[in-house]
C-alpha cells in the first residue's frame, strides 16, 4: 500500500523481514490489536495487514529490525512459540524497556491496520483516498458570531 520510493537508500536499512522476524511480528501484532467478532475486524496479525506492514518499513527498517530483535531477546527465542500469557509478559517488558525503535514499529502497524478496508468500514469510513471525492461538511450558521460582533473592536491601536 505504501507508495514511498521503490528503492530505499541503504541508510534506511534492509527493507525485508526474515521468516523469523515475520513470525515474531505477527505474534506481537496479535497481542497489540487482536481480532474482534464484536466489531467485525481482523487482528493486526491478519495476513493482508502483515503483508502491508512487511512492505512498508521504509525509513524505519532499521528500527523495526532492532525492535523485533529486542523482543526475541526478551522472549528468549521466538515470541510466537511461547504460550499466550508469556507472549503478553514479553510484550509488556518490551513496552517498558524499548524506546524509539518500538515507537516507530508501532506507528507502521497502526498505519497499516487503520487503512485496511475491513477496519475502515467497521469505523464507518469509506475505504478510499480523500481525493477526488472529498467530504461534506455543514456550512454552519454564522449568526453564532453575533455576540462577537456586538462586543466590537478588540485590537490595540499602535
Amino acid at each position, binding site marked *: *500500500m*505504501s*507508495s*514511498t*520510493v521503490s528503492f530505499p*537508500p541503504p541508510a534506511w536499512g534492509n527493507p525485508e523481514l526474515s521468516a523469523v522476524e515475520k513470525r515474531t511480528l505477527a505474534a506481537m501484532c496479535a*497481542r*497489540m*490489536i*487482536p481480532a*474482534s467478532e464484536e*466489531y467485525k*475486524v481482523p487482528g493486526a496479525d491478519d495476513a493482508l495487514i502483515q503483508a502491508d506492514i512487511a512492505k*512498508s518499513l*521504509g*525509513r524505519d527498517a532499521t528500527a523495526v529490525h532492532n525492535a523485533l530483535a529486542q523482543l526475541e531477546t526478551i522472549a528468549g527465542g521466538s515470541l510466537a512459540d511461547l504460550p499466550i500469557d508469556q507472549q*503478553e509478559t514479553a*510484550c509488556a517488558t518490551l*513496552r517498558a524497556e524499548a524506546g524509539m525503535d518500538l*515507537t516507530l514499529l*508501532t*506507528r*507502521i502497524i*497502526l*498505519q497499516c*491496520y*487503520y*487503512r485496511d478496508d475491513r477496519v*475502515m468500514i467497521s*469505523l464507518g*469510513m469509506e*475505504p*478510499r*483516498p*480523500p*481525493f*477526488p*471525492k*472529498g*467530504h*461534506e*461538511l*455543514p*456550512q*454552519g*450558521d*454564522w449568526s*453564532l*458570531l453575533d*455576540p*462577537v*460582533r456586538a*462586543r*466590537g*473592536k*478588540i*485590537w*490595540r*491601536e*499602535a
Partner: protein
Amino acid sequence: MADDIVDVLIIGAGASGAAVAWSLADTKMRIVCLEQGGWMKPSEYPSTGRDWEARAMGDYSPSPNRRGRPEDYPINDDASPIKVVNFNGVGGGTVMYTAHWPRLHPSDFRTRSLDGVGDDWPVSYDMLEPYYNQNDRMMGVSGLADDPAYPANAVPQSSRRLMPPLPLGRSGRIWGEAMNKLGWHWWPSDATIATEDYEGRAKCINLGHCTPGCAQGAKASTDITYWPAAIRAGVELRTHCRVKRIVTGDDGMATGVEYFDKDGTLHFQAAHVVVVACNGIGTPRLLLNSASEQHPNGLANSSDQVGRNLMFHPYIQVFGYMDEEVDGNRGPPLNLWSHEFYETDPERDFKRGYMLQISRGNGAVAEAIASHENGRLPWGADHHARFRKLAYRKLNLSVVVDDLPEAHNRVTLDPVLTDSHGIPAPKVDYTIGENSRRMIEHGVERCKTVLHTAGARDIGVQNPIVFSGWHNLGTARMGDDPRSSVVNGWGRSHDVKNLFIVDGSIFVTAGAVNPTSTIQALALYIADQMKQRLDTLFD
C-alpha cells in the same frame, strides 16, 4: 563555469521569493531565481492514495531530517525542544502549510514602545496594509469580513476579494457555542484555501489533508499562484539549483553566487542584485557559509546578528474528546481562531500574548498513533472499544505564543553535518523563554477552560508540539541601526548594498500568528521600494 550576468538573482522560490520575483518582473529586468528543489506534481500528493496518512510521516513529513529528499538539507536541531519543519521545492513552505492566513496586529510592530519588550519595526501595519491586500488578491483568501480583532477587515469585503469562509462544521459549532458562553472572541480563520473557483484554482472539496500539498489545487501555494504569473512576465526559474555561497568583490558588493546544478556541476551566476529568500534557517546558513576575507564572520554580519534572535512560535496543543462525532479529517484542519488573549494585559504576568488556533481533528491513523503514544489507546482486547471513543471525537486547539527575540536563540553552522553537496548544515540552539513559559501556562489553562465548557472529556496537553518549528523568524532582522540589525527598513543589507533579504528572517518580532501573509507582504513592500529607488539603489 560562468553564466551571463543577470540584473536580479533571487535565491529560493518559496513564499517570499515568488512574491518578489512577480513584483519585480514589471521592471523588465533580467531576473533569475535559483531553487534547490523541483516543481511539485499535485497528482502525487498523499491525499491521492490510501496511504495518505503514512506518507505524511514519510516522504511528505514536515521534518527535512525525516523526509530526506535530495533537495532537503539536514538540520541539527538537537539543542532545541522545537524541531525545524519546512519544505523545499517550487512553492517552498507554501506547499506544505496549513494555509492559515492571519496578519500581524498593528501593536506587533511597536512592542518596544508599547510594552518595553522586543524592538520596534522600521515599518508599520499601515505601511504594509496595501501589500497585505495585494498579496491576498494573488493568493486568494477565504474568510469572513469585519473580524473585530483586526483593522484590516474594516475595509469593505470586496476590496480584498474575500471568498466565503471555510465551513463551520460540527467542530466549529461546538467551539463557537463554548466561546460564546465564556464571552471570548472567536472568528473563522482567514485561509488561502479557495472556497469558490479562483484564478484557475478549483474550489475546496474538503479533502481534509491540506498540509502536505493540496491535490485539488484549492490551497494557494506559490507554484500555482505567483510563479505562473512571474514566468509569463519573463522571470526565469531554474530548479534543482542549490546555492553554495554568495560571492563578493573587492568593493564588498555581491558579484553573484556559486551554485550546484541538478547534475552537481558548480556554476558561477553573476548578478547586479542578489535577493535572498531562503527562510529563517536557510538564510543565515547561506550568509554564514558566504564568509570571506572581507566578511570573516559571514556575509552582512558586521552586527553579529546573522543567525541570532531565532523565533519559532512555540505551539502547545490542548485537546479533549466529545461523546459525539465531530469533523475529524473531513475538512481543512483550519477552523477558527481566537485573538482574545493576543494583546498585552497588565493584569497578566507576561508581556504580549497568544492566539488560539482552533483545528478540526485527525484521521484514524493519526488519532491511533497519537493516542497510542500518550497512553490512551491500549494493547489487547480493550483496544477496539477504546478507539471508538477517540476516533473522530477529538477537539483540539493550539496556543500560538508570541516568541520574543533573544540573542542566544540562534542558527550557526554545524561543524560536521553537511548536505548532499558538502555544504555545511545549520545548527539550531533554542530555548523557550521565561515570558513565553508564563504565556504558555496561562494559555493552557484557558484552553482547558474552553474544552470543559464545550463538554470535552479526557483533556490532554502536548507542550510543546515538538515538530512545530514552521515559523523560522528573526535571524537577519531589519532595523535602522546597522549595529543591531542586518537589513534596513526596506530589506537591503547594511553591509552589502546590492544584497537584499525578503523572507521571515527579517522579522523584528514574531507576533503570535502564522507569518506567511506578513512574509509575502514584506517581500512585495521591499520589491516596491526597490522599484522606486532603482536610480539610487546602491547609494
